[in-house]
């Protein structure tokens, strides 16, 4: 996941750098950007090239990397294994879960951010603090807490069993729903904060002006609030989508072994199977997908990266 984050940030940097160079940048400017350029070279470009090179190799018998300059790893990702497109399925599942999670965070995060932004100033800060308080606890601990809540002998099932509402425990944990709950819980604050920032900047006399001109709540939202808070929506969606698609801890713990996402596949390839070349290829495909999705999303939001 850290790898993915790196690549995302750097994607923007490099393309911007690229534009600078194409624009015929001269000596002094080059000198000024050289610290950043060196940083990018050392921590982004060189590792990326290494991953690319590894993805073109093959696993040796002892798990080492044998550089054979082949595209077999990429072919393997898109091929049938035992009658199923196993890896593409994992990929599609990750994409689906990440998109769904982004949508859920947006649907629940927007009203929350709007509510907070409309409070008196001193109360706003208190409410934002409440949104951020979960960060004070380690993510793993919070995930385990959710497992305690959702498991067969957890709070919810125990309560329902005691009340006699159910006879058998509900299957709340170790399935796709549990993974989505975990991701939604984990990433909702990342959606709320950028949304809040853009809603707070919205001049509410514009909302009144829309009402005054005959727009009801829904049309005011469509025509005025939504377009003016689009930067926050775009930023929040990207910040939630990218870590969601690469999520590893949540599907591993809350999905049991049943909901494999790309993050789990990567972990298996690197640490269990020790097939670094294939893992690198999967990582590369993930990176390109995220880059493509982000660009597409920016374009639809009327922005360029």
């Amino acid at each position: 996941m850290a790898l993915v984050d790196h690549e995302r940030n750097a994607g923007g940097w490099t393309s911007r750098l690229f534009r600078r160079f194409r624009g015929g940048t001269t000596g002094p400017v080059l000198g000024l950007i050289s610290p950043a350029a060196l940083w990018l070279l050392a921590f982004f470009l060189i590792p990326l090239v290494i991953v690319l090179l590894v993805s073109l190799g093959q696993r040796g018998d002892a798990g080492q990397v044998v550089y054979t300059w082949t595209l077999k790893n990429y072919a393997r990702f898109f091929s049938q294994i035992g009658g199923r497109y196993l890896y593409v399925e994992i990929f599609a599942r990750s994409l689906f879960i990440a998109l769904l999670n982004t949508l859920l965070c947006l649907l629940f995060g927007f009203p929350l951010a709007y509510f907070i932004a409309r409070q008196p100033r001193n109360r706003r800060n208190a409410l934002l603090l409440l949104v951020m308080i979960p960060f004070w606890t380690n993510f793993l601990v919070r995930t385990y807490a959710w497992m305690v809540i959702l498991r067969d002998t957890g709070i919810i099932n125990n309560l329902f069993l005691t009340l006699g509402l159910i006879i058998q425990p509900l299957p709340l944990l170790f399935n796709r729903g549990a993974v989505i709950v975990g991701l939604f819980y984990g990433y909702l604050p990342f959606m709320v904060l950028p949304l809040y920032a853009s809603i707070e900047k919205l001049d509410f006399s514009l909302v009144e002006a829309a009402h005054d001109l005959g727009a009801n709540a829904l049309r005011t939202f469509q025509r005025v609030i939504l377009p003016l808070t689009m930067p926050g929506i775009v930023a929040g969606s990207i910040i939630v989508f990218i870590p969601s698609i690469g999520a590893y801890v949540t599907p591993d713990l809350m999905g049991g072994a049943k909901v494999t996402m790309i993050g789990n596949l990567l972990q298996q390839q690197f640490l269990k199977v020790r097939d670094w070349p294939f893992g690198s290829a999967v990582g590369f495909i993930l990176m390109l997908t995220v880059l493509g999705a982000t660009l597409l999303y920016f374009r639809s939001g009327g922005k360029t990266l």
Partner: protein
Amino acid sequence: MESIAVELRNVTKRFGSVVAVDAISLRIRDGEFFSLLGPSGCGKTTTLRMIAGFEQPTEGDVFIAGQPVAGVPAFERNTNMVFQNYALFPHMTVAQNVAFGLEMKRVPSAEISRRVTEALDMVRLPGMQNRRPNQLSGGQQQRVALARALVNRPEVLLLDEPLGALDLKLRKEMQLELKDLQHRVGITFVYVTHDQEEALTMSDRIAVMHLGDVLQVGTPTEIYERPCCRFVADFIGETNFLEGQVMGREDGHVTVIIPPDIRIQVAAHDEVAVDQPITVAVRPEKIRLVKEPLTSAGNCVPGVVQEVVYIGTDTQFLISLAGGVMIRVRQQNRISASEQFAYAGERGEQVYVAWATDSALLLGE
């Protein structure tokens, strides 16, 4: 019977324990330019927002064109507002801004573009359709805000200190233009301002508000010449207040003694009791400055020139009367500078201040 565009009956608005508007009643006539005038915090903007539907009265009723509007949301009221900061939609062009209200009413698009063009012509911004609000000057944004409201042909146009952000010269221009516009469209304007000169310039009638109350409603002349109370006299224009006691009363004149021994006569129609404490209000421009005492009827009191301030059109004098009573006098500089010099007092000079008995007012309380 004259028709009433907006009526407020015993309208009160409380925010928590704060009474913003205190049981006011107003009848705003169809087609009139009506101003709500008062210092900040007097409840004028709250009153306007209750007419617009942004606030609901705590008590009392609002009627628009004779219909009670309690519970009718802002977007269903046939009123439009020009906001203090214009509140133009920054993500839309001028044309889209102006068209917004018509689109909400689902007016056919051919008619929309015709009416938008008309409205922009009316506010003298032809051909500005495709500009963005941030490409316009403050005065132009103001006009777009006007066009955006007027294009809907509302029953009542509500204006919340719309000229507050403009510089003085532009503000004066816009005052006349607004007045002219109101005549042309014939729509009732309800105008909120704290600027008394602005209210006097534009309004058919003015309601002076203070601490949630309406103190006086009247034409600019009535408000200026016959203020109902000390606050109105003080807020609108400049006034000298002379505190005294009623001495006596004879055929339409009341004699007031200002301590220690200044006797003045004031034309009075109302009943006043002898020995009653009273305030005499007299506007600085109603007072004449003369070198010799006048023998004709009226008031003529000796004094000493304390200060002379030349302000172009006028010269202001501060005169001290007996017992340290100070009085302001304002004289128009109608004559040439050299004559003026001979005529006007100098600091320390002995002069007489004179005014007619019906130029002053008695204010109770």
